[in-house]
């Protein structure tokens, strides 16, 4: 049982700000929220009269839908703002939008933006609680929380788990959030990807970095594949997609190196035949659809916990 009953901050900007106790509280609250999804009436009146704005400056289907469903299940009023195109001068657009939104006095803003630090910037200027739904290559905290929830559901624990995170490390906010969460909770994280897609300073997050996929997979309890993010690649990182699959694609044969009861995860959307073979994605190891289902419960937990006041007040 969690040692605390509230989060310290009114925003969720990144895993970096959370303590292990706070992570535990979110995961435990999510367990109660998951049960709501099994009822005949999948809705509770908790956030009635609260307004939540979903501000998406970047394409997103599952995260946006997942937040929307979580908000609706808690009876919040939701407002979706989707802005296509990210070639505009980001800081200016964001600040202007923030001011406009403030005038409408929302209680919470869920924001996704292509610029790292966008959520922080909003948190500085807005009175509403800010939830980061992905900012550039920085963080995606609710994804890491739902991944942890799914791992614990399948494995019963986080501490001591060997987790291999494989793929496009350079552009992955999923990696950054997951690596921080998992090391905080006592798991062993191995990050693996092509040398051209290795960001600097990864070892400072407490993860073991390797470019050998076999080494990363050896005895792993959890294999998390990352999406090759073509849209963020503005240089020559890879010879070809085909060669990438040969070196870093997850196939049933490759997976034999992992623990016999290993689970396979993917934050979606998947590039089948690029980072993951269909036989794996649809195979018995896959918990990819559980991740989607758990995402709603975890986001409900976050919305509920942030809707309260400060623990220190």
């Amino acid at each position, binding site marked *: 049982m969690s040692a605390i009953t509230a989060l310290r901050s009114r925003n969720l900007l990144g895993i970096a700000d959370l303590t292990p106790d706070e992570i535990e509280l979110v995961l435990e609250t999510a367990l109660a929220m998951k049960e*709501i999804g099994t009822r*005949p*009436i999948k*809705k*509770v009146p908790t956030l009635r*009269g609260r307004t939540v704005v979903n501000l998406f400056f970047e394409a997103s289907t599952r995260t946006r839908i997942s937040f929307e469903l979580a908000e609706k299940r*808690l009876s919040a009023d939701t407002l979706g703002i989707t802005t296509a195109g990210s070639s505009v001068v980001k800081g200016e657009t964001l600040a202007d939008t923030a001011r406009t939104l403030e005038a409408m006095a929302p209680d919470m803003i869920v924001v996704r933006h292509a610029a790292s630090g966008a959520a922080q910037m909003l948190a500085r200027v807005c009175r509403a609680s800010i939830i980061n739904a992905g900012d550039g290559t920085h963080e995606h905290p609710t994804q890491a929380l739902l991944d942890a929830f799914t791992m614990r559901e399948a494995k019963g624990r986080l501490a001591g788990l060997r987790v291999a995170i494989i793929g496009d490390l350079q552009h992955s906010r999923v990696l950054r959030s997951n690596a921080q969460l998992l090391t905080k909770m006592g798991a062993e994280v191995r990050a693996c990807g092509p040398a051209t897609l290795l960001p600097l300073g990864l070892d400072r997050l407490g993860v073991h970095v390797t470019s050998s996929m076999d080494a990363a997979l050896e005895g792993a309890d959890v294999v998390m594949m990352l999406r090759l993010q073509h849209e963020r690649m503005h240089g020559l990182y890879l010879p070809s997609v085909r060669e990438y699959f040969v070196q870093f694609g997850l196939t049933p044969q490759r997976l034999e190196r992992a623990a016999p009861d290993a689970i396979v995860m993917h934050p979606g959307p998947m590039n089948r035949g690029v980072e993951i073979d269909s036989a794996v994605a649809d195979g018995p190891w896959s918990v990819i659809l559980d991740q989607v289902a758990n995402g709603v419960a975890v986001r409900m937990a976050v919305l509920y916990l942030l809707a309260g*006041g*400060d623990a220190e*007040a």
Partner: protein
Amino acid sequence: MAIVMDADRISRSLTRIAHEIHERNRGVGDLAFVGIRARGVPIAARLAADLRQIAGVDVPTGALDITLYRDDLMRTSVAPQPVVRRTEIPFSIDGRHILLVDDVLYTGRTIRAALDALIDYGRPNAIQLVVLVDRGHRELPIRADYVGRNIPTSRQQSVQVRLLEIDGRDEVEVEG
């Protein structure tokens, strides 16, 4: 301060209530207990055990968390959110006679929330309310069908029900 019920008294009250439940619901096939977290849950389990002894019937038992239905949530912007626990009702409540169980009946607001929560699980034929202690001061038109003990209190006092399963001993204490 004052212990108003000891372990023996609690046990005898619950046995009496189990007899009353049996008496009043004779011939009613589909009874089920739903305990309100936290202390309604062990009380419901004890009543189910008593009923098994008295009538030889197995009555299913569930646990209800009413946190998300509270009417004082979101009213203040300063207090942290209460902790949400799991609701576990491993049976359909449609068409059943539900015995809703709590430790203390006071303003009636918890029961109001519990009724709202229960209705979201289905449509029971009837809901009856069982409480170990009724301390008065109702703020809503709610009354209990089975009461372990009526204890007159002032609003300044607090009533603590302690149960073996949660607190390590059985007693009811009026403080203040």
